């Protein structure tokens, strides 16, 4: 009986060969560019030597991890990364939700469209350009911001050389660039809410705020929680390209995060195994956070919805 079932399965597989041909390039891509690097992660436990490859280099156990945990940089890197990540979650994540709730209530359809299009636009500007804009606007001598500061009687600030200004610049530009883009996703979710719920609430005398609180918020909660879980799972991968671009020798004490350090130690100084270990540490924490929050969200939704 099992044999006939296997045979049946094999026949189904063979009959679908053309679908596998269509799928093959994608599978090959994932095997080479996603799974091969995963296999290559083992160099974090070896002393990688290019001529011996991933699996031929000698094992060194946890030596690279121990070196990282005991390095003088460790506390600084972890703190900087976590602070930036948490600020991102606390500031950059909720703002688009608030914006979407407000925009959704706007009476004038034309104004709504203007708001959407304008706020959405910066999402298409590259990270390099956004950081370039920051450099131009916050330049100590010619920047517009410092002109305004001197105009109101303050002393110009060299924003990119002050460690204290790295986080505000990073988070602020993040809001400027991404809030509109995420807002549109929430607006789409809001558009999916059954309009009769709003009408019923209006007839019952609910104000705009009450309708937001009791109709809109519960309506987009599933989308919010999915995006939140994903954001948490990416907590430590905070757009490190921007951090790298905003980094100057003078603001390192706040701008050096785990990922920028991996780039410098690994690719600029060719310490492949050591920086692979740091990257793995980063990924594992991410994965742990993701699973934890996913579990929490599932429990939370079970107890509140059902």
């Amino acid at each position, binding site marked *: 009986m099992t044999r006939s079932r296997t045979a049946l399965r094999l026949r*189904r*597989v063979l009959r*679908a060969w053309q679908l*596998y041909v*269509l*799928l093959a*390039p*994608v599978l090959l891509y*994932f095997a*080479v*560019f*996603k*799974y091969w*690097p*995963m296999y*290559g992660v083992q*160099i974090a436990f070896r002393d*990688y030597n*290019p001529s011996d490859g991933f699996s031929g280099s000698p094992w060194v156990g946890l030596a690279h991890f121990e070196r990282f945990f005991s390095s003088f940089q460790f506390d600084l890197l972890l703190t900087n990364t976590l602070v930036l990540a948490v600020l991102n979650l606390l500031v950059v994540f909720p703002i688009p939700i608030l914006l979407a709730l*407000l*925009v959704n*209530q706007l009476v*004038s359809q034309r104004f709504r469209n203007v708001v959407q*299009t*304008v*706020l*959405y636009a910066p999402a*298409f*500007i*590259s990270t390099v*350009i956004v*950081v*370039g804009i920051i*450099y*131009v606007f916050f330049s100590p001598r*010619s920047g*517009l911001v410092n002109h*305004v500061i001197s105009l109101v009687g303050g002393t110009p600030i060299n924003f990119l050389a002050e460690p204290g200004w790295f986080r505000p610049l990073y988070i602020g530009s993040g809001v*400027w660039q991404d809030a*509109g883009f995420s807002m*549109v*996703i929430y*607006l*789409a979710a809001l558009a999916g809410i059954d309009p009769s*719920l709003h009408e*019923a609430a209006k007839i019952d*005398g*609910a*104000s*705009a705020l*009450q309708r937001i609180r*009791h109709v809109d918020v519960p*309506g987009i909660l599933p989308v919010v929680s*999915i995006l939140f879980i994903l954001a948490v799972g990416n907590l430590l991968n905070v757009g490190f390209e921007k951090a790298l671009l905003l980094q100057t020798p003078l603001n390192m004490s706040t701008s050096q995060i785990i990922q920028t350090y991996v780039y410098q130690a*690994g690719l600029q100084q060719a310490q*492949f195994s050591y920086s*692979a270990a740091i990257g*793995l540490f980063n*990924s594992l924490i991410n994965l742990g956070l*993701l699973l934890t929050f996913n579990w929490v969200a599932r429990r939370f939704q079970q107890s509140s919805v059902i």
Partner: protein
Amino acid sequence: MATATAARTPRPRQPLSGRVSDRAFNRASVLLMSVAILAVAYPIYFIVIASVSDPNAVQNGQVLLAPSGFTLEGYERIFSDPTILRGFGNSVLYTALASAISVVLIVSGGYALSRRDLPGRRTITFLLVITLFFDGGMIPRYLVVKELGMLNTIWAMVIPAAVGVWNLLIARSFFDVTIPHELREAAQLDGASDFRFFFRIAVPLATSLIVLMAMIHQVANWNAFFDALIFLNDADKYPLQLVLRNILIQSDLSQLGATTGDIESYAQAQRVGELVKYGTIVVSTLPVIALIPFLQKHFTKGALLGAVKS
């Protein structure tokens, strides 16, 4: 599930007071949104007017609402600068090729995954989704590209980042929703093979998906810089973003007219350098901004479909 919680309707209040407070609420949010629009739009507007203004006026803070001392010198420099032009050309080439590769992979793979009669569909999808949550990281990825001999070649710019799981799932959902099973069964009864059905029916029906994916990848590839930073060594292979990084962030204006080396031309290069900065921001962003009206409509649908369906 949304309706279950939303069904808890709020306590009724007097309808009239509700209406008055609604009007105040609307006025407050119109005001707030106007501030937001200004905060987002002004920096962009400023850069445009600064790019055609006299650099001295910009430096002194005289340019705020309108350009002052109109000049196109910055743009003249940009369009005669070999480094910027080469970067522009490279970016066009990489973007076109990379988008084409991505679209082919995503549409064919997404279609196959959308077929419920594909044996092993669940396992394959699971294996793809795992990569969203765990990956080897920057270093092993770099070493794999190196091992493949792709370093410092155009292939490093168009293949390693070709397929995102997210986009693949959007494509899968798209085919799942738009192509009825009956249609395929009918075609099968008429003797159409999977290939024939895919090329003759699925692909023509997927025009909007193809357009969406092409545009998403064009934007992403046009704006990408990190892969170029780690995979390319030769400056003449640099895409525009990497050239821009040198000009905007590292203030490397050495190519701009510093050939003679005397102080006067150096000062002149500095002066034009500021203009060039504003101008390059405009020139490099314009091709992408022009896509927004086309993208916006499709994108919301696609993004939501992908977010909810996963």
